[in-house]
């Protein structure tokens, strides 16, 4: 089990305190997710924005980030506590968000500098386009194309469609993944700057997590300068799916952290409403165990960014537990609780979002059993030999250098 050192405990306490501010704004943003601008100067959203920006790119050095290190463990500790305030507000915030994770993983120093410079004003939303309308999050089947423009001076052209992209209608910069050829190596991330001719993002009306302002994007020959295509400085095997896989490992722990934060919020509500009632103890014990599991998964990702199973286990388990916890909370507060407690009703909607982000439960199951399935098709070992399980890690696609 992962023991948190003093700086991480300080970070946790700071985020727990900051989450109170998010809670006060939660229902307003859920009611009108387009009206977020007035919340951006909240001390908590400012803190999240600054802390999620690598230190060397921070414009405001005066904000105390509580010792936030940017490690996967620090991210999930902050994610749990802040989502305990409100996950919708976190997703409604400006700042690097998932696009930043992709730029950090795949971008050159110059690309990172340009990206963080573009969002330094604290008023810029970013977006991350991966999922497609017909292909879901199956990156190997991606149809969006990134092709050389007829005039080399125009760089590359982005054509296709993306779906379920947070903040795409109000973002001014983002990362969109697309295919430059037919092989698995040809999926690349491109930095897209808005406004851009051929780019159109339309908000979708979603059940919950409405602060995320989830959108559909149509891309009709959007021009991307070659210097904005991520990963050119990396070996060929690391520019495409391999790099995305690493990115997803971090993201899955973050999504799990938000799911757990919402579940803890629901549990906390029950404890507040029923002081002295011990009926929460089994649920609380499960949540404590899930938190420990999440911390361990994050540490494993920090030690081995290619480790695929731990973050998928965390996401699979915690998203399910979180949905069940909100159901339990509704029961524990009695008939009509979902209408009597608007925040609980909101959490019951919000928590479902995490199932659909970065791979549904079935996709996580495939990740978790990937090496098992591979072993099942491998030649049988000769009699008397002992085999050891292979570490399930993100591996370079076939044909990689």
């Amino acid at each position, binding site marked *: 089990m992962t023991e948190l050192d003093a700086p991480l405990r300080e970070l946790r306490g700071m985020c727990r305190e900051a989450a109170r501010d998010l809670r006060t704004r939660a229902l307003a943003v859920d009611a009108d997710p387009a009206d977020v601008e007035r919340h951006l100067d909240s001390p908590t959203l400012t803190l999240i924005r600054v802390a999620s920006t690598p230190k060397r790119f921070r414009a405001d050095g005066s904000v105390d980030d509580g010792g936030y290190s940017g490690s996967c463990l620090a991210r999930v500790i902050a994610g749990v506590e802040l989502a305990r305030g409100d996950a919708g507000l976190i997703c409604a915030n400006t700042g690097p968000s998932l696009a930043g994770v992709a730029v950090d993983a795949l971008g050159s120093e110059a690309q990172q500098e340009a990206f963080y410079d573009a969002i330094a004003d604290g008023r810029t939303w970013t977006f991350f386009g991966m*999922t497609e309308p017909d292909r879901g999050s199956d990156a190997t089947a991606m149809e969006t194309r990134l092709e050389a423009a007829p005039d080399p001076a125009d760089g590359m052209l982005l054509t296709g469609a993306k779906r379920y992209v947070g903040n795409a209608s109000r973002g001014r910069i983002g990362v969109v993944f697309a295919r430059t050829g037919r092989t698995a190596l040809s999926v690349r991330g491109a930095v897209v700057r808005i406004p851009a001719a051929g780019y159109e993002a339309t908000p979708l009306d979603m059940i919950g997590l409405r602060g995320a302002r989830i959108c559909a994007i149509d891309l009709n020959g959007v021009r991307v300068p070659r210097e904005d295509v991520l990963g050119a400085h990396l070996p060929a095997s690391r520019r495409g799916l391999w790099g995305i896989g690493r990115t997803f490992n971090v993201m899955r722990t973050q999504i799990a952290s938000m799911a757990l934060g919402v579940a803890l919020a629901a549990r906390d509500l029950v404890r507040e*409403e029923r002081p002295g009632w011990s*009926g929460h103890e089994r649920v609380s014990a499960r949540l404590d165990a899930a938190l420990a599991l999440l911390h361990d998964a994050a540490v494993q990702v920090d030690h081995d960014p290619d480790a695929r199973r731990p973050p998928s286990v965390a996401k699979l388990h915690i998203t399910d537990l979180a949905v069940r916890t909100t159901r339990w909370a509704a*029961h524990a507060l009695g008939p*009509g609780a*979902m209408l009597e407690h608007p925040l609980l009703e909101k959490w019951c909607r919000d928590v479902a979002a995490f199932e659909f982000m970065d791979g549904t439960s*079935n996709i996580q199951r495939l990740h978790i059993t990937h090496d098992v399935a591979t072993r099942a098709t491998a030649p049988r070992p000769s009699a008397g030999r002992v085999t050891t399980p292979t570490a399930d890690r993100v591996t370079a696609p076939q044909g990689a250098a």
Partner: protein
Amino acid sequence: MRDTIARCETTAHAEGLAAGLTQALAAARDGFSPPGRVAALPADRVPPGAAAVRNRLAEREGIGCFVWPGREAERPHHVRPGHETERPHHDGASDDTTTEFAVLLGAVRLGATRRLLEHAVTHLSGRTVGGEPTLRKQLVLGTVADVMTGVEAARHALLTGASVPDAVADTHERLTELDWETTKLLGASGYLADGPARTAHVSRLLADCWVAAPGGTP
């Protein structure tokens, strides 16, 4: 009762939650009331003058939420005195008419669950993964089979357990679970507020209002 249950299910399956609920109201005996303070009914059946409880998704489903007339000053269920005799008369699931209505609501929800499953099957038939229809993936087929089985089991449970409040509540809980398992098959499209997953959320809201948790509030 069997025919009434079938009519409620068929109507909700064909026309949606509000229509199914209207059918259930037509069949319900007088005297039922929610176990808590709030209720949800087809918007045109909300009692005049009742204090509205706004819910965006319920409204779009044609369902109105409100405080049950006469219960405006009551405390929420969980902060009432714990001693049974001190609880209001309407609390608990001993009221036969309310349990009967919960059975009819279960049939309505069952129709909506079938509708959601059919949508999911159609959706998955039109998508491919690795060149194969998504519907043929074993993990997916397994869930579809489980939901189909759960639907049959729930229908029979409504018929055989109609007089047992806890059994009815248990069936509602299983319907909520079946809806969630089906919604997951839709991927992110199962999170669109203008899609059938909205019905699943409102279906759960209805159960939350009209049915005490299995075993009562824990």
